[in-house]
């Protein structure tokens, strides 16, 4: 107990790289009256990634980047989600699950293609098990380039979506 308390006090605030006082940014996607402004719940779908994008996506929700402070939260069910974050080239085995996840998400909803593989299959283009990029399977609204994108990029893109 005391050890943990000491650790908490010593550690203090970790979050910090993204300037908080940057003020609300205009959303490039959603107008001010859009239902999703200020609150976007995310269901992440790994459609064939090498797990690199997952590492960085998880970091964005870690204490250092803390994207949750902008009203972005991970949720367990697509029924609770507003946006799908899809990583990897879509494999033949994940195409149907991805579509089903998309269908299971109530509107209005967004699809965010995270990473180069999600955008254009990256180095995996042409693999016999690859069905295509995310946009080939479900309509994509936002793309975040990078292999993998840095947490800073991810946070910036998500802020653009949520408008804060």
């Amino acid at each position, binding site marked *: 107990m005391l050890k943990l308390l000491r650790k*908490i006090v010593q550690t203090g605030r970790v*979050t910090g790289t993204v300037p908080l006082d940057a003020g609300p940014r205009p959303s490039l996607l959603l107008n001010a009256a859009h239902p999703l402004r200020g609150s976007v719940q995310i269901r992440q779908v790994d459609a064939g990634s090498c797990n690199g994008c997952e590492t960085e996506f998880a970091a964005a929700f870690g204490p250092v980047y803390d994207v949750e*402070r902008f*009203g972005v939260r991970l949720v367990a069910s697509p*029924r609770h989600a507003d946006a799908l974050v899809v990583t990897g080239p879509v494999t033949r085995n994940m195409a149907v699950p991805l579509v089903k996840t998309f269908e299971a998400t109530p509107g209005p909803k967004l699809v965010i293609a995270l990473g180069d593989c999600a955008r254009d299959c990256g180095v995996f283009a042409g693999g016999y098990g690859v069905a295509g990029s995310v946009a080939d399977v479900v309509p994509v609204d936002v793309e975040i380039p990078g292999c993998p994108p840095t947490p800073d990029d991810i946070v910036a893109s998500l802020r653009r979506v949520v408008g804060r």
Partner: protein
Amino acid sequence: MSPTGIAVAVLQVVLSIASAPFLVGMMRLIRARLEGRVGAPIRQPWRDLRKLFRKERMVSTNTSIVFSLAPLVLLASAALVAGIVPFLSTTSALDQVGDLFAVVYLLLLGTVFLSLAGLDAGTAFGGMGSSREMTIAAIAEPTLLVAIFALSVSTGSSNLGAIVADTLAHPSRAASPASMLAFSALAVVTIAETGRIPVDNPSTHLELTMIHEAMILEYSGPDLALVELAAHLRLVVFLGLLANLFFPWGIATTAQPLHLVAAAGAVAVKLIVLAAVIAVIEVFIAKVRLFRVPELLAASFVLAFLAVTVSFFLV
């Protein structure tokens, strides 16, 4: 059943509902800060709810009317309890409508409906959540009722207004062993019934470990908003019960607006303190293994039982 009484009851319901998401937002913020994060603003849960109300409503195939009915019953039962429990004033019109037992069974009614909804879609997760929820609810029941027993022994009544008035009249009773034992017992049950650590993890993303979350995996949009709001409201109701049954000071004994404002301030402070304490404790403890939960509740039952025996032998 006077008009002012009804007005007070309605005011309680409205204020509880309005403040519940903020309380949850505050608890999330405290956890974030202790984890070194900035965290979402306190009003974030309201934002989330507002958004959900504007989203598409999806109903799973194979479900029955229970699926649509459960969020309503869950929220209505919690709201009714918010009207009965003396938060602001002991003059609530609903005080004679139901006593503490009625409150407990009304909350159980909500639990039962949510559990049925969990079974309704026929998914393994929903059933799992229902089964776990009913297990915990069933085992928590003895603690709840025996703790009420302890409270009503000294007061001679299980009416909420009477218990509050009695504690106000005899402040020393709040510090009596019986009262403290009963408080501890109810605190444990509160944590179990509101799905907090160490019983359930409100922020988990693991379907197989969930209790509350597993039952509501099928809900979306407005239905989900109702369920979430009800969950927030139940937290307020349980914490409010704990606060005002054991520390009723500040509550209005009339329905005068000024007194009510002061009472609202007092109950707000109490709720914030209790919620903050829970939020801080949650950071320091882990979730116990599912089959240790009954042990935890058994321990709380022993506390409640001791409270009754103590009040018998020490009164």
